[in-house]
Structures are given as C-alpha cells and as structure tokens.
C-alpha cells in the first residue's frame, strides 16, 4: 500500500515527529508586506536543531523574505520569530547568531580569501592566534588551503562558492542561512557540491536553512522541505512525502512531472476510492481518511514513472486508458513518451520509461496505438479546488 510503505522508510532523524521536541527556530504567524503586496502572509513554521531545511518555491513566493527576516535584514509587520527561545525582534543583523551565504556570495573584493573568512571573527574581537587557527580550519574544510592569499577575482566560481561558505561557517552560527547556494554553479559542479554540503552539514551537526527554487536541489539535500505559494506554506514534509503525497495540486505540479485527471468520486469503500473521469474512465485509488463525500469534484494525479505502457490491452478493470503516441523525448536515463488521449485536441499524458538496457530498438514508436495503466497505489487524490 502506497502510504504504508512510505511510512516504512527508515528515518533515524525526525525531531519534527516528536511533539515534545523544542524547535530551534520558530516563525509565529509572521506577516510581511511591501506596500500593498504581501510577501509573507500569516506564516508559522518550526525548524529543529540539526535539520537541513529547504524553503522551496517559485520566485516571488516570499521564501527569500522569510530568510531575510531571520537574518534581520527585514522586519516582520506582525508575528514573532524565535531563535533558541529568544525573540529576535529589535535585534540588528550584526547581533544575531545566524550567518548567511549570499546568492551573489558577496565576497569582499578588496580582501584576500583569508581576510574574508577572518572578517566575522575579527568583529567578535577574537584573539589573533585563535583567528589564525579558525581560518586555517575553515580553509581545510573548504579545500582552499593553497588559496589563502588570493583575491576573490582570482578564483573560479566553485572556489568562490566555497569561500562564501567558509566565511559564513567560520563564526559557527546557530543557523546557517543559504540563499540559492548552488544557483551560480554549472550542473556538474552543482551535483558534486550538493553532496559536499550534505556531508558538511551532518559532520558539523549544524542547522541549515536553504532557500531555493530548484526542486532537485531541495529534494536531494533537505531533511524537510517547505513548499511556498504566494507568501504561505503549501506543505511542509520530507522530500519523499512531498513527492509521493503532495498536499495540493500546486505542490504536485511544482515538484516533478505529473499527470492530472479531473473527475468525481463515485464510491468510497474503506480505503478504496472510485473516481469517474470523463477522460480515462474509472480510476481506483488507495487513500486513507478521505473526508470528501461521494460526488465531490476531485483531481487524480499520477506520476509519469508510475504509468505502464503496452500495446495490448491490460487485464484490468480500471486505471487504464488508450491513446496514440504523440511525442517521444529521449533523455538518456529515461524516455518521456507523450500519449494523446481521445484523438485530436485531447489531453497529453506523460509516461516515463526507464531505459534499463542499452538497446537501440524502440518498443514504442510514433503514432502507435497504446494502452496506459497504473497500480491502485499510484494515483494521488487531490481536493477539488480550481
């Protein structure tokens, strides 16, 4: 059963499931408006010590504003932000125990790598010898040993990113804020850096709060993701749950590819829901605790990789539909097939075929008449909001 196997995913770290756990960072009904536009609207969120937390959303959803309020660069219009039990209201950025890695890195161009990393420590009035030791430690951590005397403009993009990270980590903040930390890197480097950041975070046992618009980045790195929509949180959950059990159509469509069918609930028998869809007939789903009544208008979402494609009609009574192959996109690791349902003008359904074998022959070709089908557990029932 879908959600039961979901619950079985082994997780050693999940403080958010413990009601007695005290969160490190708490946003309490925070609202921030810029003129008439509200960037963050009545938002509450708790982040636990040791978490790698991601704020995910399109540009303009308020994720950066939320982070900047924690850093102290923006002041909430209402609501409270607590860090380690302390209300941050009125505390200026330079006295907050958070450090931020800026999207542009914001390295001081007139200072060497060493001086950049030491800047925060010097502000604390740390002893010279201790600063030198900490800087050396940070240079080693960021694999920048040979670059201490260089200026930022003598470094590559990846090296600059590591200097920015080392500088933000040097003061050992209670929370490290990462604003689109990998946005400026090319794809290959981004993938490597993702795992480096994860290793670093678990090694240091630090709390990381990351802002990103890149779902892959959030999925790979974060312990939990908050998907944001126009200043509000659409869903907070671990990556698997965001993907497999999205709370709304918005989340389902924002994270990953998905096919959405409109329909109405025909019957509810325990966990088995029957939905009648005008496009693909009867759909059976396995969902717990459905509060919707029979007859309610709903959406059924199915991920492309959970759909099976075949030339012969499958021996199923429901969850199947026939159509014509419209487009085939070869992506190397898998092939995305688009199937048109109901002839000209009908909807397209995306099907992802994993390319298990190195075979050149294509089992599916353009204009083939094919059958699509999926398991009862594959469908996701989403409320019928427009």
């Amino acid at each position: 059963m879908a959600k039961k196997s979901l619950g079985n995913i082994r997780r050693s770290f999940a403080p958010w499931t413990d009601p007695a756990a005290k969160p490190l960072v708490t946003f309490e009904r925070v609202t921030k408006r810029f003129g008439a536009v509200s960037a963050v609207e009545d938002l509450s969120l708790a982040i636990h010590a040791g978490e790698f937390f991601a704020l995910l959303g399109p540009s303009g959803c308020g994720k950066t504003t939320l982070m900047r309020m924690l850093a102290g660069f923006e002041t909430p219009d209402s609501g409270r932000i607590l860090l380690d039990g302390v209300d941050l209201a009125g505390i200026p950025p330079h006295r907050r125990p958070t450090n931020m890695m800026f999207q542009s890195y914001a390295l001081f161009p007139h200072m060497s790598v060493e001086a950049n990393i030491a800047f925060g420590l010097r502000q604390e009035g740390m002893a010279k010898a201790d600063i030198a030791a900490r800087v050396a430690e940070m240079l080693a951590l960021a694999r920048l040993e040979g670059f201490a005397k260089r200026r930022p403009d003598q470094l590559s993009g990846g090296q600059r990113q590591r200097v920015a990270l080392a500088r933000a980590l040097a003061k050992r903040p209670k929370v490290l804020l990462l604003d689109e930390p990998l946005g400026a890197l090319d794809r290959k480097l981004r993938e490597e850096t993702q795992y480096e950041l994860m290793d670093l975070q678990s090694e240091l046992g630090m709390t990381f709060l990351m802002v990103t618009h890149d779902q892959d980045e959030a999925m790979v790195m974060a312990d939990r993701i908050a998907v944001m929509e126009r200043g509000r949180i659409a869903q907070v959950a671990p990556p698997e749950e965001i993907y497999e059990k999205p709370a709304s159509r918005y989340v389902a469509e924002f994270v990953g590819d998905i096919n959405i069918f409109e329909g109405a609930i025909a019957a509810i028998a325990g966990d088995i829901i029957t939905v009648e869809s005008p496009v693909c007939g009867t759909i059976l789903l396995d969902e717990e605790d459905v509060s919707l009544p029979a007859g309610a208008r709903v959406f059924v979402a199915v991920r492309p990789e959970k759909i099976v494609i075949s030339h012969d009609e499958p021996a199923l009574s429901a969850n199947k539909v026939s159509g014509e192959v419209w487009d085939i996109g070869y992506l190397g690791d898998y092939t995305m097939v688009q199937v048109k349902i109901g002839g000209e003008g009908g909807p397209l359904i995306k099907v992802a075929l994993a390319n298990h074998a190195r075979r050149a022959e294509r089992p599916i070709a353009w204009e083939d008449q094919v059958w699509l089908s999926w398991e009862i557990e594959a469908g996701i029932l989403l409320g019928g909001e427009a």
Partner: protein
Amino acid sequence: MKRFRFPHFLALILGLAFLYIPILVLIVYSFNASRLVTVWGGFSLRWYAALFNNQPLMDAAWLSLRIALVSASVATLLGTLAALALARFGRFTGRTWLAGMIAAPLVMPEVIIGLALLLLFVGLEAGRGFWTIAIAHVTLSTCFATVVIQSRLVTFDRSLEEAAEDLGAPPWRAFLAITLPIIAPAIAAAWMLAFTLSLDDLVLASFASGPGATTLPMRLYSAVRLGVTPEVNAASTILIALVALIVVSASLMVKKNLLDTRR
C-alpha cells in the same frame, strides 16, 4: 573594428582641429623666443622663467591652489553624503527635491550663481576673499561630485554591506571597512573633478572675490585685457597640463573601478 572610411576620418580630423587648434597654438607660442605673440622667433623657455619671477602671478596661482584644495575636499565630503542619501535611503520625503536641487547648478548659468552668492555675501556683510571664493566653488562642484559618486553607488552590490553586518559588523563599521574602500576610486575621481573645476573657474571667483584675493584665472584674464604676453601663454600651458593630467587620471580611476565591479 569598423571599416576605415575616408569621410568619417575627415570629419574626425576637422572636429578635433576645431576643438584643439586654438589650444595648440597657445601651447606652441608659450615656447616662443619673441616678445611678439604672433611672430615666431625660435624655441625658448624664457617665458616660463619669467613666469616664476612674476610675483603677483605666483601669488594668484598659490591662492587658486589653496582654494581648490579646500573647496574640492569640502565638496567631495558633501557630495559623498548627498550621493549616499540619494542612492541608499529609498524614497524619503523630499528626495525628488534634493535630487533636483543638487543637480541644478549643473545647468544653472554660472553668472546667476555668482550673482546670487555675491548678493548673499554682501547681505551678510561677509568679508570677501579666500573663504567666499571657496564657498562659491563648493556650491558649484558639490553637484559634480554627487553625480560621480552616486553613479558608483548605484552599481554597488548592497549585499556586500549586508554580508559585513551579517558577520557582526555594526552598520557604520560595515560602511568604513567595506563600502568606503570599494568606492574610494570614485571618491578620488570626484575630488579631482572638483579640484579642476575650482582651479579654472573665472566667473564665480570674480563675483565672490574681494580686494587682495585674485585667483589665477582672474589674474590671467586681466593680464590678457592689457595685451597677451607669451607669459600668459606659459601660465595657461601649465594650467592646461595640470588639468589634463588630473582629468585623465580621474577618468582612468572611474573606468578601472567600473571594470572591477563587472568582474
């Protein structure tokens, strides 16, 4: 590179000739051995020697230099503050007014500024001399300084200052340790611009000066009215060289600064 075209080249030569032949003539005749301005009598440095023995001219030059130093420094300080206000404080009440008022001297006829200042000084019964000229020059050059520094601040990445604050520096220290060193070339350029504006100003100085305070341009102007001597040519040549040096180094500084920010 664009293809070379003769008509374009001709236009360029004519344009440059129109602008620079008078200056070139002046420079060439400053090395003239003859006393007559229009007759070439061979190469000589005698007028430069005579210049340094001409005490009134040297006094005027010294006064001009001192006024330029003082007024450029004050104008740069005020210009920096005004530029910060315009570039940083967002939309405060009166921002449009401040921006307009600061830019006004750029387009206002100098005669009018000079006259206004003269009336003010007379009304205040201020003794006219060094300080009144310096104040007049500050009025004029502050707007130029503001424009130069503001254009640098507009391209300045605010997150640098935020990063400094985030790392524990109070705002004033973030400004001194991060912003100021980075915009320093623009400030230096603004200072040099203000310095040259003051050094070669005739109109404002004429209005704002009093007895016993004659700047170099005023001295040269009055000397010319009594007939052009090669000595005036020599003084002018030195002035041109000085101004050219400063303007070129200022523009190089701004250019380098811009290149640094783009990297």
